[in-house]
C-alpha cells in the first residue's frame, strides 16, 4: 500500500500541472485593462444572456475594460449571484454589473459592494434596495403588454387565448405575464382558455401545447413568456397541422424566433435588446468610474417584432 503522504503529493503535483496549463492556456484571469469588471447574468440556459454577454464584451473591448461574465450554475439562483459579487469584492474589481435574479435577494450583495465602494449597475432587472448607479433596459411588464396588445389587435379583439407561463417563481416570468394579463383585461372579447407553465423550456412548450391542443379544438392565439416555449408550441401545432389557425407570440427575439417569424410561423416577439442592455450597462459603469454623471434609469426601447420589421433584426 502506497503511503498516504506519497500518494497525496503525487496527486497534488499532477493536479497543479493540469491546473496550471488550463489556467494559462485557455481562460486566463483578469489581464491588464484600464478597469476590471464582472458581469453577472441570471443563467446560461437562454441565448438571451449570451447576447447580453456579447453586448457587454463589445463595450469592454471598446473601452479597454477587463470583463468576466459569470452565471449561476443553478439557473436564476440569486444566492450564487451573491457569491459572485462577494468574490468580485474580494478581487477588488472596479465595478460590478449584475442582472438580479431576484430584485430583493440581491440587495445584501449590493450593500456589500456599496460598503466596499464598488459601483453597481443593474442591467435588465431592477434591484429593490442598496445604492445602484444605474439601471438599463426595458420593463418586462411593459414589453409583455405591448406584445399582447399587438397580438390581440391582430385578432380583432376577440378569440381564444392560451398563455404559456415561465418557470414558477421566476420574477421575469411573473412580470411578463402581468403585462399579458393587463392587455387581456382591456379586451373583453378575449377568452383565456388556459394558463399553464412550460418552465421556459422548448420541449415543455411542445409538450404542454400538444396536451392543451387535445382539450381545445379552437385556439386563436398562444402567448408565451419566452421564445423557447413559443417555438416548442410552433413545433407542436405544426406537427398537428394546426399552425395556420393559431397565432403564436414569444418574447426575447432569439434568432430562431426571428427566423420563425420571417417564415410566417410565429406572429411576433419582443426584443428587449439584451445586447444593448449589456453594452450600455458596461458603458454606464465606465462613465461612473470616470466621474461623469450617469442617469439613474437608462430606458432602452424594446420594439415588438413582427413580419414587417423582422428582416432588419435577423442576423
Amino acid at each position, binding site marked *: 500500500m*502506497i503511503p*498516504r503522504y506519497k*500518494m*497525496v503529493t503525487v*496527486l*497534488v503535483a499532477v*493536479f*497543479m500541472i*493540469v*491546473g*496550471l496549463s*488550463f*489556467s494559462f492556456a*485557455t*481562460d*486566463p*484571469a*483578469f489581464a491588464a485593462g484600464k478597469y476590471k469588471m464582472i458581469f453577472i447574468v441570471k443563467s*446560461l440556459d437562454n441565448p438571451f444572456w449570451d447576447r447580453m454577454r456579447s453586448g457587454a464584451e463589445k463595450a469592454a473591448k471598446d473601452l479597454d475594460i477587463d470583463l*468576466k*461574465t*459569470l*452565471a*449561476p*450554475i*443553478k439557473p436564476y*439562483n*440569486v*444566492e450564487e449571484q*451573491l*457569491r*459572485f459579487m*462577494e*468574490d468580485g*469584492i*474580494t*478581487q*477588488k474589481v472596479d465595478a460590478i454589473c449584475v442582472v438580479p435574479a*431576484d*430584485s*430583493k*435577494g*440581491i*440587495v*445584501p450583495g449590493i450593500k456589500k459592494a456599496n460598503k466596499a465602494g464598488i459601483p453597481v449597475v443593474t442591467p435588465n432587472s431592477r434591484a429593490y434596495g442598496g445604492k445602484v448607479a444605474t439601471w438599463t433596459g426595458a420593463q418586462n411588464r411593459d414589453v409583455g403588454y405591448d406584445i399582447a396588445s399587438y397580438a390581440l389587435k391582430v385578432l380583432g379583439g376577440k378569440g381564444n387565448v392560451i398563455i404559456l407561463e415561465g418557470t*414558477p*417563481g421566476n*420574477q421575469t416570468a*411573473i412580470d411578463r405575464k402581468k403585462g399579458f394579463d393587463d392587455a387581456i383585461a382591456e379586451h373583453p372579447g378575449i377568452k383565456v382558455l388556459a394558463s399553464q407553465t412550460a418552465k421556459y423550456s422548448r420541449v415543455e412548450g411542445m409538450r404542454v401545447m400538444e396536451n392543451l391542443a387535445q382539450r381545445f379544438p379552437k385556439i386563436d392565439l398562444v402567448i408565451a413568456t419566452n421564445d423557447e416555449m413559443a417555438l416548442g408550441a410552433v413545433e407542436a401545432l405544426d406537427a398537428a397541422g394546426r399552425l395556420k389557425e393559431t397565432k403564436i407570440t414569444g418574447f426575447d427575439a432569439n434568432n430562431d424566433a426571428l427566423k420563425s417569424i420571417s417564415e410566417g410561423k410565429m406572429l411576433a416577439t419582443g426584443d428587449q435588446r439584451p445586447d444593448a442592455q449589456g453594452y450600455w450597462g458596461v458603458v454606464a459603469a465606465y462613465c461612473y468610474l470616470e466621474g461623469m454623471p450617469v442617469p439613474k434609469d437608462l430606458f432602452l426601447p424594446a420594439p415588438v417584432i413582427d413580419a414587417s420589421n423582422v428582416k432588419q433584426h435577423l442576423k
Partner: protein
Amino acid sequence: MGFKESFLAKIRLVPNAAYMFLMTLLIFAIFSPSFLSLMNFSNIILQSSMIIIVALGMTIVMLSNGIDLSVGSVMSLTGVVTGHLLASGSGFVLSILGGIGAGVFCGAFNGLMIAKVGLAPFIATFGMMGIADGLSLFAAGGETLYWEEPMFDVIANGHFLAVPAPVWIISVIFFIVYLILYKTPFGINIFALGGNEEGLRLAGVRIVRNKIGIYILSGIIASFAGIMLASRIASAHPTGGFGYEFEAIAASVIGGTTFFGGRGGIVGSVFGALIITLIRNGLSLLGYTTPWQYCLIGIILTVCVTINTFYSR
C-alpha cells in the same frame, strides 16, 4: 507507543476529506492572489454555511442506510413559512419556530412513509421533494417574499465576539449532531440501522420510531439551512433550496460516508461541504467563466473521490 507512532495513529483518524480540503486550499492559494485573504475566508464560511448544515443532516440519514432527497424543497418551504410569518410581523422567534415546524412536518411525513408504509427512502423523499416544492410555491403565491426584521439578518450576517454568526450556528448544530450520534442510544440505533437493521429488529428496538426520528431530524436540520439561506439573501424564494440535496449527498460521500450505511462521519461531511464551496469560490476568483467551472468541478470531484477510495481500501 512512541510519540511518532501515536501521532501517526492520530493522523490516520483524520478523515481523508480534511487532507483534500488542505490540498484544494493550497492549490488555489498558489494560483490566486486574492484567495488567501481574511475577507475571502470569511466569504467562504458564509457561502458554505447552508451546505454544511444540510450535509450534516444528510450524513445522519445516510448513516442509517437511507437518503433524503427532499431537503432542498424543505429549505424552500421553511424559507417561505418563515418569510410569511416575518412579513406579517410575527417576530423573530415565532417565525423561526414556524419554519422549523415545516421541517418537522415534512420529516415526519417522510419518516411515516418510509417506516410505516415501507416505501423506499429514495421514492418517499423524491415524492416529498415535489410536495414540499409545490406547497412552497403555492404558499408564496409564486413570488419571492421579503420582510423587515433586522434581528433576522443577524443570523447570516451578524458577528459575535468578532466571529461571524454562521460559524457559531454551524458549531452549535455540529455539536448537537455529534452528541446525538455518539452519546445517545438514538445515535447508536442510527448507526445500527445502517449496518444491520434486521439485527436491531430482533433485539427488540422500535425501528419505526427510530426511523421517523431520523427523518424528522433531517427535516429540522434542513429547515435550519433554509432559515440561514433566507437570512443571507434577505428574502424567501419559493424554489431557493433547489439543488441542495445533491450537493449535500456529494459532500457526505466526499467526506467518506457511503450509501451502505454504518460508516462515515460528520467531520468528513463538513470538509466535503467546504471542498465543494472552496472549488466554486476558487474557480470564480481565478476568473473561470461558468462553462469551465462546470468541467473543472467534475474533474476535481472525481480526483477527490478517487483519493478517498484509494485510502479506504
